[in-house]
C-alpha cells in the first residue's frame, strides 16, 4: 500500500509547510558551511571557501523548489493555480463569462430538472425499511387478494411478514358542513410494522388498532392547517370514529411509487375488502425461491379452501418494489419509460446546443488570445500544459453554469412538486436534491467541460503555434471558419429537430383543446357524490337516493335536465369485449367497446344527438323489456346501413337485448381515440349499484352559479356523502393532460433550443462581421453601396443557415415519426406545415442575427473602419 502511505505522509506534510521551508533552508546552509569548513582546513581563505562551497552546491533555490515539490500533490496545485488564473481571465471578460454561464445554466437547468423528474418518477425509493427485501405479491393472476386468502398467505410461514393494502380506496370525511372525499390507503393492521413506515409525529398504527389513522404530511398541512395538537383527535370517516395516531414525514413516498400521494392510511374495515399483498423476504431468500414456495402454498390453498373457478396457484408473482427491477418487471411501464427517455434525449439536445454556443465563443476567444498563447508557448510552456489550462477555464465555466443550473433545477423541481395533476388518483412527486442528482451533475460538468472546451483548446493552441508572434491576422483563416460554421450548422440542425417536436405537441394541444368531444361541455355540470358503502347495504337504498336526488335536481330553477351515469366520459372508462351476435343472420363478431350505464335524459343533458329510435326512459327499469343504445360506429359495425332499432343483440352469454336507439359518436376514453364503439344500457341495469354516483346536469345559462345549490341539495339528501361539483369544461383536464404535459415540456425545450441557437448564430455572425470591419470599410470607401455589402454578409450566413436547416429538416422528418404514438390522429407528425413553420421561424431568427451586426458594420465610418485593429 505504498501509494496510500505516500499520500498520508503528503497530507501530514500540509500542516508542517511553514517549518518545512525554514528547516530546509537551514539544512542547505549547514551543508554548504560543512563543505566550506573542509575547504578552509585545506588552506583556502574563509571568504573564498564559502564562495567555492556555494558554487559546488549549485542553485540552492532550485534544490529547494525541487525538494518542496516532492511533497506536493503536483496536479492539485496546478489545478488550483489554473483555476485562479481562469477566474482572473473570466473576470477580465465579464460579457463572455456571463453569456457562457447563462447558456450553460439554461441547458443544465433544463437537463437536470428532467433528470430529477424522471429519476423520481421511475426510480424513487419508497420510504420504508429496507426496500430491497420488500416484495409485491400476486396470487391467482390478480394484484389484489381477498382477506381470507391474505390471512392464509400470512400464516403460511414463507415470509417474515405479509401485509395488505388497497391504495385505490376512498373515504368520506364527515365535518360540520358536509363531507369531503379523501384518498385513503386501506391497510391491514400489521402494515406499518411489516413495511416499516416511520412517522414524523405520534406513532404508527399497531396490530389490533382498527380505529387509528395516520395522516400524510400534505393532508395534515392542507386540511388541518398543520395543527400541532392533531395527535389523538378524532375523525369521522365513512360514518365511523377514528383517532389520529400519527403524521407521516413530509418526504414520505408510498410503496406504490410514481408519486402516488394519498391523504391518509386507514385500517381495512370490511371483510369484503381486497388487498394488494406486500411481503418481507427472510434474509437470503431470493424472489425466485419465494415464488416457488408461494406456488406450493397456493396449491394447498386451492385444495383446502376452493373458491369457485379461481385457481390461486396460477399467476403467482413476486415483484420488486424499487429500482430497475420494478420497471423491467412490468410491461405497463415501458411506454412511460419510453416517454421519459424521449424527454431526456430532448433536454440532452438542448444541452448540446448550449455547449456548442459556449464552444464557439471559446473558439472566437482563443483566436483573439493567439498572442497570449504564443507568448506562453515560446517561453517554454508545453502545449499539453496550455491545453490543460484552457480546459480548466472551461471547467470553471462548467462549474459556474452547473451551479446556476442547479439553482434553476431547485426552483423548477419545487414548482413541479407542488403541481397536483388532474388525475383520478392523487399524484404528487416529492423531488428533492439527492445523491443521484449530485452524481449526474458531476457527470454533466465533466461532459460539458470536454464537449465545450477540448476542441477550442486544441485548435487554439495549434493556431498559436503556427501564428507564433506574428501580427494578428487580419483575414479570417479558412480552417477556423469551417469549425465555427460547422458548430452553427449543428446547432441549427438540432434546434430544427427540437422545434419540430415542440411545435407538433403544441399543435396537438391546440387541436385537443378545440376538439369537440362529441358532447357539450359548456352548460353541463358534473356532480359527484360518494356514498358511504357500509351505509348502503341494499341496492334499493342506493336507488332511492338516486331517484330522490334526480327529482330534486330537476326542480332547481335554471336546470333543464338531470341524469346519472356510471362513468363520466373522458374521466374513466369501462371497456368490455366479447362475441356479439345480432339477429340479422350475420356471423357473430368479436368486438371491444366502451360499456356505460346511463340514466334517462343522459343524451339530452350531454347534447349527444339520438340518430335513430329513442333514448332511455324512466320506464326502462328492471323487469321491463331489456334495451340498449349503440353509438353510430357500433351500429354500422354490426348492422351496416340497416336500421338496428328493434333488432336484438346477444353479447357473450348475456341474455338477448333489444336495440332501442342509435346515438351519435362521441369521445369516451381519450380525445385521441378514433372510431371507438360504445354500448349503453339503462343505469338501473347496473348491478350491484355503485357507491360513487355521477350526476350530470344541464344548465339553462351559466353553469357556475348553480354549483352551490346543487351541493346544498345533495348534502341535504345524505350529509355523510362526499360531494364534488364542477362544470364539465373543468373536468376536461384529464383528457387534455398528455397533450398539455407534452406541449409544456417539449414546447419550452424547443423554444429554449431556438433561443440558444439564435444566440449562437448571432455570436458567430457578429464575430465574423467584426473581423471584416476593415474590409467592409475598404469596400465602402471604394464605393460599394450598403446594399452590396449587406448582400455579401447575408450570403455568407445564408450558406450556413440553409445547410443547418436542410440537415435539421432531414433528421426531423425521421425523428418525429415515433411521436405519433403520443398524438391525436388529427395531428400528423410529418405534416409539411410543421416543417414550413419551423423553417420560417428559424429563417427569421437567422435574418435578425445576421442583419444586426451587418448594419452595425455599415454604420462605422470608413475612416474609422480602415484603422480598425
Amino acid at each position, binding site marked *: 500500500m*505504498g501509494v496510500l*502511505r*505516500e499520500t498520508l*505522509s*503528503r497530507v501530514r506534510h500540509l500542516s508542517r509547510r511553514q517549518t518545512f521551508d525554514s*528547516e*530546509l533552508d*537551514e*539544512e*542547505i546552509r*549547514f*551543508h554548504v*558551511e*560543512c*563543505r566550506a*569548513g573542509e575547504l578552509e582546513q585545506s588552506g583556502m581563505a574563509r571568504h573564498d571557501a564559502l564562495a567555492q562551497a556555494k558554487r*559546488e*552546491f*549549485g*542553485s540552492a533555490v*532550485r*534544490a*529547494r523548489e*525541487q*525538494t518542496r*515539490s*516532492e*511533497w506536493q500533490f503536483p496536479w492539485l496545485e496546478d489545478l488550483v493555480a489554473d483555476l485562479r488564473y481562469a477566474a482572473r481571465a473570466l473576470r477580465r471578460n465579464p460579457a463572455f463569462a456571463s453569456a457562457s454561464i447563462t447558456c450553460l445554466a439554461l441547458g443544465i437547468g433544463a437537463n437536470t430538472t428532467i433528470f430529477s423528474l424522471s429519476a423520481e418518477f421511475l426510480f424513487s425509493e419508497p420510504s420504508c425499511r429496507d426496500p430491497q427485501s420488500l416484495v409485491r405479491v400476486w396470487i391467482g393472476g390478480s394484484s389484489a387478494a381477498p382477506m381470507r386468502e391474505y390471512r392464509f398467505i400470512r400464516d403460511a410461514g414463507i415470509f417474515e411478514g405479509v401485509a395488505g393494502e388497497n391504495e385505490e380506496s376512498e373515504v368520506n370525511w364527515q365535518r360540520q358542513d358536509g363531507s369531503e372525499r379523501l384518498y385513503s390507503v386501506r391497510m391491514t393492521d400489521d402494515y406499518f410494522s411489516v413495511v416499516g413506515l416511520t412517522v414524523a409525529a405520534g406513532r404508527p398504527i399497531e396490530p389490533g388498532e382498527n380505529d387509528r389513522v395516520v395522516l400524510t404530511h400534505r393532508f395534515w398541512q392542507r386540511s388541518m392547517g398543520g395543527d400541532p395538537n392533531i395527535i389523538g383527535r378524532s375523525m369521522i370517516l365513512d360514518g365511523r370514529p377514528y383517532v389520529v395516531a400519527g403524521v407521516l414525514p413530509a418526504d414520505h413516498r408510498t410503496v406504490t411509487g410514481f408519486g402516488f400521494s394519498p391523504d391518509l392510511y386507514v385500517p381495512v374495515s370490511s371483510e369484503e375488502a381486497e388487498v394488494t399483498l406486500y411481503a418481507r423476504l427472510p434474509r437470503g431468500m431470493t424472489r425466485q425461491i419465494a415464488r416457488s414456495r408461494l406456488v406450493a402454498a397456493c396449491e394447498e390453498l386451492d385444495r383446502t379452501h376452493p373458491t369457485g373457478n379461481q385457481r390461486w396457484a396460477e399467476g403467482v408473482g413476486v415483484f420488486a418494489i424499487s429500482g430497475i427491477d420494478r420497471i423491467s418487471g412490468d410491461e405497463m411501464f415501458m411506454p412511460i419509460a419510453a416517454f421519459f427517455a424521449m424527454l431526456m434525449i430532448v433536454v440532452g439536445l438542448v444541452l448540446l446546443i448550449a455547449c456548442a454556443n459556449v464552444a464557439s465563443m471559446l473558439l472566437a476567444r482563443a483566436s483573439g488570445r493567439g498572442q497570449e498563447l504564443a507568448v506562453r508557448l515560446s517561453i517554454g510552456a508545453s502545449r499539453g500544459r496550455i491545453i490543460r489550462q484552457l480546459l480548466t477555464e472551461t471547467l470553471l465555466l462548467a462549474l459556474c453554469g452547473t451551479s446556476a443550473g442547479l439553482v434553476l433545477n431547485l426552483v423548477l423541481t419545487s414548482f413541479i412538486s407542488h403541481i397536483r395533476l388532474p388525475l383520478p388518483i392523487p399524484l404528487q412527486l416529492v423531488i428533492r436534491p439527492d445523491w443521484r442528482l449530485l452524481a449526474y451533475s458531476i457527470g454533466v460538468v465533466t461532459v460539458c467541460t470536454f464537449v465545450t472546451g477540448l476542441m477550442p483548446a486544441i485548435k487554439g493552441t495549434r493556431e498559436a503555434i503556427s501564428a507564433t508572434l506574428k501580427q494578428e491576422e487580419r483575414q479570417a483563416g479558412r480552417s477556423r471558419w469551417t469549425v465555427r460554421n460547422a458548430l452553427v450548422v449543428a446547432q441549427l440542425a438540432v434546434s430544427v429537430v427540437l422545434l419540430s417536436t415542440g411545435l407538433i405537441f403544441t399543435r396537438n394541444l391546440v387541436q385537443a383543446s378545440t376538439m369537440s368531444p362529441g358532447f357539450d361541455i359548456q352548460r353541463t355540470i358534473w356532480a359527484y357524490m360518494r356514498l358511504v358503502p357500509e351505509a348502503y347495504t341494499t341496492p334499493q337504498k342506493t336507488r332511492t337516493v338516486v331517484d330522490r336526488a334526480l327529482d330534486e335536481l330537476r326542480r332547481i330553477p335554471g336546470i333543464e335536465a338531470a341524469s346519472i351515469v356510471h362513468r363520466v366520459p373522458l374521466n374513466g372508462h369501462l371497456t368490455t369485449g366479447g362475441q356479439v351476435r345480432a339477429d340479422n343472420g350475420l356471423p357473430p363478431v368479436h368486438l371491444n367497446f366502451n360499456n356505460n350505464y346511463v340514466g334517462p335524459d343522459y343524451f339530452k343533458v350531454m347534447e349527444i344527438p339520438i340518430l335513430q329510435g329513442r333514448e332511455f326512459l324512466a320506464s326502462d327499469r328492471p323487469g321491463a323489456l331489456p334495451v340498449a343504445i349503440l353509438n353510430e360506429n357500433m351500429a354500422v359495425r354490426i348492422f351496416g346501413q340497416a336500421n338496428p332499432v328493434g333488432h336484438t343483440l346477444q353479447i357473450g352469454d348475456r341474455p338477448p337485448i333489444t336495440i332501442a336507439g342509435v346515438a351519435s359518436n362521441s369521445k369516451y376514453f381519450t380525445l385521441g381515440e378514433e372510431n371507438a364503439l360504445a354500448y349503453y344500457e339503462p343505469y338501473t341495469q347496473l348491478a350491484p349499484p355503485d357507491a360513487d354516483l355521477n350526476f350530470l346536469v344541464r344548465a339553462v345559462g351559466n353553469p357556475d352559479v348553480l354549483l352551490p345549490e346543487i351541493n346544498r341539495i345533495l348534502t341535504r339528501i345524505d350529509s355523510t356523502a362526499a360531494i364534488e361539483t364542477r362544470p364539465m369544461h373543468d373536468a376536461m383536464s384529464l383528457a387534455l393532460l398528455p397533450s398539455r404535459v407534452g406541449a409544456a415540456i417539449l414546447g419550452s425545450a424547443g423554444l429554449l433550443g431556438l433561443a440558444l441557437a439564435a444566440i449562437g448564430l448571432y455570436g458567430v455572425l457578429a464575430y465574423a462581421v467584426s473581423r471584416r470591419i476593415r474590409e467592409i470599410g475598404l469596400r465602402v470607401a471604394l464605393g460599394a453601396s450598403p446594399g452590396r455589402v449587406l448582400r455579401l454578409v447575408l450570403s455568407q450566413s445564408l450558406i450556413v443557415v440553409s445547410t443547418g436547416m436542410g440537415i435539421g429538416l432531414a433528421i426531423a422528418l425521421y425523428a418525429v415519426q415515433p411521436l405519433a404514438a403520443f398524438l391525436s390522429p388529427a395531428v400528423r407528425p410529418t405534416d409539411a406545415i410543421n416543417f414550413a413553420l419551423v423553417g420560417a421561424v428559424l429563417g427569421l431568427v437567422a435574418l435578425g442575427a445576421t442583419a444586426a451586426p451587418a448594419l452595425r458594420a455599415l454604420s462605422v465610418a470608413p475612416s474609422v473602419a480602415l484603422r480598425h485593429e
Partner: protein
Amino acid sequence: MGKERSTPELLPGTLYMLVLRTLSRGPLHGYAIAKRVREASGQSLVIEDGSLYPALNRMLIKGWLKAEWGISENNRKARFYRLTPEGRKQLDKEAAEFDRLVRSIQLVMRTA
C-alpha cells in the same frame, strides 16, 4: 548539466541505493552522506548536491527514511537521516537487482 566533471555520472536509478547503503551503518546528515559516497568510491562517484535533498525527501515520503534533528560532530544543529525497516528491505531489494544486472552485463561483455 554543462559543468565539466572528471568523475562519471551516477548510473541512473542508483542514487537511492547508494544513499540507503550509506545509511545502513547508522544515521548521518546530508553532507556526511554525500561525503561518504564520494570517499567510499575513491572520489569517483559524486552526488550532485542539488539532487541529494530532493532524493532524501522522496525517500522520506516513501517511508524508507526517518529524519530527526541532532547535533553534528562539529557541534552544530543538523538533520540526521536514519534507515527504517522498510528502507532496509528496499536496500536489499535494490542491491540484489543491481547485482543481477551487473552480472548479466558482465556476462554479455565477456561472452558475446
